[in-house]
């Protein structure tokens, strides 16, 4: 009966406008947060190099060929790069300065042996667990990260030999062996593959292993740093690319394309997210304003109810619960429509070759809960203020 008294004679037009506005805002808010997270997660797990990471070298031009231009990086050049606001870190890629060959050492795969080129990078650029990525002098097995092209090549080789091809997971079980040597001695060390990279053409090894090889099997003077790793800041790959072009640097094209695409898409989604937040904020304001209007229309009823003995908190609760239910319906509807959007958008992305994870981003749900809590708080405090005003009237 209390509800009947307080919500009779409402002007529903304003309420409907506010509900539609909130519904659209909430729907786009969840959708944009979800895809912002998913786009930034894109590629994670399949690539062992950390996100937004580039391997960069100086462009080889005629000057370099004739020995007039440097192709290596000095310490000051690296330090200068670190100071750029769109670059979060820069580290050199260290190469082997000793002879090293790599071979299969497994009865299940055909024998294969080749002189190889190995490199090491700072572990912070790698998306691997630190306990897997360590080696110390005396250890019999060294963890390695293989270029994915190596598996393609191995599978081609195995297929030609009539042996079943191996998956990424199976390839991690194949036993390999390094032979490192100089003119005086030779050493064999077993190698275990823990992951793959599309971005590095060489075999990656832990820094300690490279230091051990370079110290004990060095062929001459230290090798110069000709490649560096750059970690760009989220959504600022455009600036990184601009910097590379300006300074005569180059990177593997696919890394740049993915990074740049992610930056563009992220920026677009951030814009949509911003608009969604404003839409949610404005429509919530309209809803709260509607509550204020409703309360001022019901000032006499509220005042009289208090005078005949109704507890103010029960009147506050009546208004509060009513608006909580409205926003609950808005939130649930927004969430349901998000799933419809998601179904179509995911299909479009899959059709375009971008298989992003189909799970709902936790942040979307958190955003929804936060929006709901903020609205609940705003409607409660508005209702309380309105009722208490009539209590003291």
């Amino acid at each position, binding site marked *: *009966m*209390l509800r*009947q*008294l307080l919500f*009779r*004679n409402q002007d529903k037009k304003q309420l409907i406008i506010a509900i539609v506005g909130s519904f659209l805002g909430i729907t786009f808010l969840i959708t944009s947060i979800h895809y912002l997270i998913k786009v930034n997660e894109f590629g994670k797990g399949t690539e062992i190099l950390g996100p937004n990471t580039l391997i960069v070298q100086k462009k080889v031009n005629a000057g370099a060929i004739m020995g007039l231009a440097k192709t290596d990086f000095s310490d000051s050049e690296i330090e200068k790069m670190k100071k750029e606001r769109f670059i979060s870190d820069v580290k050199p890629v260290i190469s082997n300065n000793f002879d090293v060959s790599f071979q299969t050492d497994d009865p299940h795969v055909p024998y294969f042996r080749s002189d190889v080129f190995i490199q090491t990078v700072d572990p912070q650029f790698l998306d691997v667990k630190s306990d897997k990525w360590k080696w110390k002098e005396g250890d019999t097995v060294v963890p390695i990260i293989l270029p994915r092209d190596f598996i393609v090549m191995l599978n081609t080789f195995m297929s030609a030999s009539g042996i079943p091809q191996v998956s990424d997971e199976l390839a991690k079980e194949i036993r390999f062996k390094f032979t490192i040597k100089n003119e005086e001695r030779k050493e064999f060390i077993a190698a275990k593959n823990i992951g793959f990279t599309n971005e590095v053409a060489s075999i990656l090894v832990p820094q300690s292993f490279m230091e051990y090889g370079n110290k004990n099997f060095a062929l001459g003077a230290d090798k110069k740093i000709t490649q560096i790793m750059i970690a760009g800041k989220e959504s600022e790959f455009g600036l990184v690319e601009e910097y590379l072009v300006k300074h005569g640097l180059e990177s593997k094209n696919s890394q740049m394309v993915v990074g740049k695409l992610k930056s563009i898409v992220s920026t677009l989604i951030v814009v949509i997210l911003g608009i969604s937040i404003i839409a949610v904020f404005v429509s919530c304001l309209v809803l709260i304003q509607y509550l204020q209007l409703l309360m001022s229309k019901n000032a006499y*009823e509220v005042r*009289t*109810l*208090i*005078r*005949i*003995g*109704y*507890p*103010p908190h029960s009147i506050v609760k009546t208004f509060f619960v009513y608006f909580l239910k409205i926003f609950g319906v808005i939130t649930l509807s927004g969430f349901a429509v998000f799933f419809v959007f998601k179904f179509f958008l995911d299909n479009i992305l899959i059709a375009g070759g971008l298989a992003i994870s189909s799970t709902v981003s936790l942040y979307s749900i958190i955003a929804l809960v936060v929006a709901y809590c903020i609205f609940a708080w705003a409607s409660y405090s508005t209702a309380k203020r309105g009722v*208490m005003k009539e*209590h003291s009237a």
Partner: protein
Amino acid sequence: MKISLNKVMPIPLASINHGANSIWGNEVELLPGKKIMLNAASGKGKSTFTYTTTGLRNDYSGAILYDDRDVKTFSVEEWTTIRQTKISTVFQDLQLFPTLTVKENLLLKNKLTSVFSESELKEKLDQLGIADKWEQRCGLLSMGQQQRVAIIRALAQPFEWLIMDEPFSHLDEANTQLCLAMINKRADELNAGFVLTSLGDDHAFQYDYTLNL
């Protein structure tokens, strides 16, 4: 519950000359269970008395005490309890909900303490000659009919005091007597007192004492 007025002077009435026996500016006690008539001419503060003694107005000097406690110190929750169980009021402007029916107006109040059943409420309307208005919206009733609904609503709770501000102003003498008899009976049942403000007419009722403004 004893209600004491210690030199209470409503600020809007401070400039008016009040008689030596006026409750304004003097020490007055409303003793529990007493039936009191508050006699005054128009503009002397009968409604102000209703509002100040029930805690709805605080613009006065002096102090109003319920059992020796200043009403200005009561919390929101305490006032809710007082209005549900200790003091009931019939306002001069009645303060019914015009968009609700008589039934809804009465049940809305009655459900707070559930002192009467629906049939008892109907019976009370019948006693006052308006049983046929049960399903009618209050806004459509005459002022006299609305006054009777407001009186029954005020009785639909436990109380120690019933404060009534010119509750019979739109009623003929026969209906006034019916209402007064019902109020008196209910007050006796509850061992409660009442204050009835009037323009001078005592409706031939034997009050315990009379106060003036």
